[in-house]
């Protein structure tokens, strides 16, 4: 019985894990850049949501609709003024640049807002619902549903809109797009903006479930999202969602079956193993099996 409980609670947190990873997958797909500043955008979004909740009593789930567009602009600005200058340098250069942006975001938040722990307590924080003897809190269910809605919206956007198809084309072959007359700079900016907006959405959703401060839990969550995008491969958004569930399930099973303190140790080891064993992720593994 305990296993079902663990898997259900994994499903709930997978919504959050997936949302924070879509942005990374999108940005890496299009610009072949690992956006280390993703954790910083999530953190700033959490603080923005906290501000909206504290002053206007706005519920975090509603705040997503304000925070996400705001961070689209933040992402676009970062791409236009910083990332664009180093995009054709060695990938390590852009990694260091975005690492600098992350440091500025974290230190800036602590410098101006102070480093202590905050938590948003939505009105339904204590409400629970029972399925048999599995109890589920409302806030976790809402975060999961929000994650699902974002998954569907993102998939529709990428499939059915011009911009979405341009982004997917750019992911396949940047030069071919340039030849086909796509304004690569504009689409890159939009892709980076969209990726940061997704990180913002995840940051807002996170406040409904966990307490936070400028460095916790964003560093750990960022590492988990690396595992997810590598595991899920970069081509398919549903692949990322599936990988998010796999990671959440692995963590919960570790805690249930063995010692709780080993949860993060397992996810970090998983990161290294996944990177080394299948650099292309599940999708590449499947493709490779078809070729050989």
């Amino acid at each position, binding site marked *: 019985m305990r296993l079902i409980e663990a898997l259900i609670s994994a499903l709930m947190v997978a919504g959050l894990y997936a949302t924070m990873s879509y942005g990374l997958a999108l940005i890496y797909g299009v610009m072949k850049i690992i956006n280390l500043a993703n954790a910083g955008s999530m953190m700033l979004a959490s603080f923005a949501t906290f501000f909206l909740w504290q002053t206007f009593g706005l519920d975090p789930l509603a705040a997503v609709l304000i925070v996400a567009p705001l961070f689209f602009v933040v992402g676009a600005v970062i791409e236009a003024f910083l990332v664009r*200058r180093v995009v054709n340098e060695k990938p390590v250069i852009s990694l260091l640049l975005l690492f600098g942006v992350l440091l500025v975001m974290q230190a*800036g938040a602590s410098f101006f807002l102070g480093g202590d722990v905050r938590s948003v307590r939505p009105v339904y924080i204590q409400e629970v619902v029972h399925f048999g003897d599995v109890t589920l809190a409302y806030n976790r269910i809402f975060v999961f549903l929000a994650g699902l809605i974002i998954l569907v919206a993102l998939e529709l956007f990428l499939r059915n809109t011009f911009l979405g198809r341009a982004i997917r084309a750019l992911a396949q072959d940047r030069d071919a797009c340039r030849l086909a007359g796509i304004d690569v700079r504009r689409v890159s900016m939009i892709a980076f903006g969209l990726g940061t907006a997704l990180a913002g959405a995840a940051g807002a959703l996170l406040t409904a479930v966990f307490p936070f401060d400028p460095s916790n839990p964003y560093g750990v969550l960022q590492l988990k999202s690396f595992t997810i995008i590598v595991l899920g491969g970069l081509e398919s958004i549903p692949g990322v969602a599936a990988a998010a569930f796999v990671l959440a399930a692995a963590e919960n099973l570790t805690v249930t079956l063995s010692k709780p303190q080993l949860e993060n140790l397992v996810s*970090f080891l998983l990161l290294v193993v996944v*990177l080394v064993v299948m650099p292309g992720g599940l999708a590449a593994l499947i493709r490779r099996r078809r070729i050989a």
Partner: protein
Amino acid sequence: MTRLLSRFSKRALVIAQIVIVFAIAITIALIPTIDERSFNLQRIAFFVLWYAILASSWNIIGGYAGQISFGHAAFLGLGAYVTGILWSELHWSPLVSLPIAGAIAAAYGVIVGIPTLRLRGPYFAIATIGVGEATRLFFVNFDDIFGVTLTRGVTGLSLSPGREEMFDPVNVLRLTAVVFVVVMLATMWIRAGRFGLGLFAINMDRDAAETAGVPTARLQVLALAVSAFFAASAGSLYAARQQFLDPASMFGFDKSIALVLMPVVGGIGTVWGPVFGAILYSTVQDQITSIVRNPYLPALIYGLLLIVIVIFEPLGIAGLLGRSTKYVRMLVLPRDGEP
């Protein structure tokens, strides 16, 4: 004619660098003898040398081979804990356990390096974050996993020095000066030699290096092992001086960040870059809180500095100095494959 001149000036360059290294080490080693009460100067001098050792060791894999490691605190912490445990369990002096700690860390570098160094650029960097954090959590839970009481987990390992000479901070400072000289000579020797040239070739184009006969996998793993050895020696020195280790501090991600910042801000891939970065970092880290109350200012400064450097001057402080006179440039910005 030019080749003769270049050979002569090259030799002079090498001698100049060696003399500078010894000058720094000897002056610092003699501080306690000159003024016994100069505890503050000794404290500052230790941390400058200590950070320089760490930054130079990171530079071997991050600067020369171009494989950026975000988890180098794993080797620093490993070195500290090996020295700490060998002292508290077997009463081996840090002087004895320093090379052992280095060897263990080098072995750990090989075990970790073989799978991860196959990865390219950003993927290697991410894998090292995973390795760094996994090592920290491994040491936090070490006692529980193996059912022993060696590291004492989050509480921290406290070393009672007793009458061991090597725990006297003055001796630690001198040992640090010696290790600093060894590390600087080693990095210069590597950079000027066959090993360094191979690493630079890998840094520039791994596939082209491979076809030119360079065993890229073996060289990278060796570079990581050497880098791990020196980083661990810094860990041993820290254990000898502070006599208290806790996983959060020794393996913390902020330490790994510092290890990336110093060489990049100082001048990645150059011999003196990491030293410049270490001097800047240790002074900002130590003195800034006396000027500005807010403790997050250093991190803010480093973040901004990193952005500015990556965009405007990829060779950091060394690059800036290099723009001055020709001789400074020769000293500070040697060509690849020269000290």
